[in-house]
């Protein structure tokens, strides 16, 4: 992550008020597909907004509901979970579990006052760098439209 990008996202918290309004997006990528897709997007020099941070997990099913709730509690404006396409999971059925869990989390997040659009699940394979880039762009636009998270005074 470049220092410039870190300043733009307001990670250090010592920026001006306007800069801190940039969205903070957390992206969980599965090791086998989506992370490679994200890597491909980077290697291909596809342009993406610098408001997201990637956390690599071995499988999208590793993303515990607590991770998502804690992310929002700590001030994330959006959480994107990217995993292998259905039937392509390295661990056979991890992404099916993720799909059900995300549906449940969307319901629960609304109980906490968050818009369900702040959580998104996407299937990105290792060869889909372009899809990863498009997903990030569209998700960032969605989060910008939704405004800051209620935890950040939105």
């Amino acid at each position, binding site marked *: 992550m470049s220092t410039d990008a870190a300043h733009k996202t307001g990670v250090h918290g010592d920026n001006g008020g306007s800069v801190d309004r940039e969205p903070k997006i957390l992206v969980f990528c599965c090791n086998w597909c989506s992370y490679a897709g994200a890597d491909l997007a980077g290697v291909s020099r596809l342009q993406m907004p610098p408001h997201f941070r990637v956390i690599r997990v071995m499988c999208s099913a590793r993303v515990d509901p607590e991770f998502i709730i804690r992310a929002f509690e700590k001030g994330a404006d959006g959480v994107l979970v990217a995993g292998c396409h259905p039937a392509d999971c390295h661990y056979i059925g991890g992404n099916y579990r993720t799909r059900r869990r995300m549906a449940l*989390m969307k319901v629960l997040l609304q109980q906490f006052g968050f818009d369900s659009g702040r959580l998104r699940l996407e299937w990105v394979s290792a060869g889909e760098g372009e899809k990863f880039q498009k997903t990030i762009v569209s998700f960032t636009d969605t989060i910008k439209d939704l405004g800051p998270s209620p935890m950040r005074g939105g």
Partner: protein
Amino acid sequence: MEMSLREARIRAALRTVDGERVRWLLGKKGQLTGQANVFGETITGPRYDFIVQKAARVELERNLLLQEMEDGPRTVHELHDITGIAKPEIVKHVIALKKWRLIDQVGMKGQSPQYMAVPRKTETKVEM
């Protein structure tokens, strides 16, 4: 929102995730909205969303109350002060939790009954 209450709500939410009720409803979405029951009735999409949201809210509140009652005996008034849930709603939750034997009346505080969570059964280790 107070920090401890927020933390308690998060823990209650995680319990809701582990619970069966909302998961069951989500798993039955296709069946409930797509197929008619024996009386030919189907649930519309907005109605289904309303039911799921209501179930999630109720489960969240019940888990929150249950957590409080696991810490010690509580009256309805005390539960209202801690959680901020309306007293009539708490009474409904207490009746439901009592019916499922998750809580029990353990005494009286003035004229208010005190309720406490029934200790959950722990898994017994099988010695080899």
